[in-house]
């Protein structure tokens, strides 16, 4: 089971590497979806299922869908996937940089295995993540209101940015 969690961690890094090598955005979104699914499975394996579900729905189902629609702005006749030598070169160079940093940082020599979970079969009646996020509405109500206000503000920011035609922020005509 421990090795399964490490496999999900490795899939996470591979997905991120797939996006960081900057292929055409159509393929970059695939890497991001792989990284989100692996991260979600990782959090599920560790026991925080509520936070994993929030990640899945808000991140994958909300933000990534909007990104996928906006990727249509990056249409080009010959999109570069990871097989292209430029993208593969970037991916190899980034992986080499991270590996060199790992070796120089002395990380590879000293590996501590072990996974902590939040399976509360013993003393706790309520799971850790459910009770923690529920505290956002009771003790953290100030932060909750600030976050809601920030979201409302962002709506108006986006509306002003894409207004166009003479009132817009970035518009030539």
């Amino acid at each position, binding site marked *: 089971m421990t090795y399964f969690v*490490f496999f999900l961690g490795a899939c996470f890094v591979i997905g991120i590497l797939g996006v*960081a090598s900057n292929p055409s955005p159509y393929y970059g979104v695939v890497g991001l979806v792989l990284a989100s699914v692996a991260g979600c499975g990782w959090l599920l394996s560790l026991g925080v299922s509520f936070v994993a579900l929030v990640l899945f729905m808000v991140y994958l189902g909300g933000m990534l869908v909007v990104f996928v629609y906006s990727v249509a*702005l990056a249409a080009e006749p010959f999109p570069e996937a990871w097989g292209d030598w430029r993208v593969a070169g970037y991916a190899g160079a980034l992986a080499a940089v991270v590996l060199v940093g790992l070796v120089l940082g002395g990380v590879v020599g000293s590996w501590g295995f072990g996974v902590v979970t939040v399976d509360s079969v013993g003393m706790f009646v309520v799971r850790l993540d459910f009770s*923690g996020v529920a*505290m956002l509405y009771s003790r953290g109500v100030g932060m909750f209101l600030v976050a809601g206000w920030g979201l409302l503000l962002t709506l108006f920011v986006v509306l002003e940015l894409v207004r166009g035609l003479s009132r817009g922020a970035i518009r030539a005509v």
Partner: protein
Amino acid sequence: MSPLHLSFYSAFVLSRLGLAFHRTHLVSALLCLENIMLSMFVGLTMWPIENQTPSFTIVPIIILTFSACEAGTGLAILVASTRTHGSDHLHNLNLLQS
């Protein structure tokens, strides 16, 4: 460093490098920014698991909220610059170059 910490730390470093060494599209740079936020989210969720402090679970949720704000603003900038320059290529954003 435990392997799981290593995993999200190297994901953070990789996406930061991917943002720094951007190539052609602005959308790719925004995707790397989203990856930074994703790795930070996973890393911040490891904290309440390992320290068994439920109240810290609020922080990843708040960070996800503000990451959604930032993604929306980034996409609005993408749309605005595509309207102006015709494409989202990063070498078009050169007004400040001498």
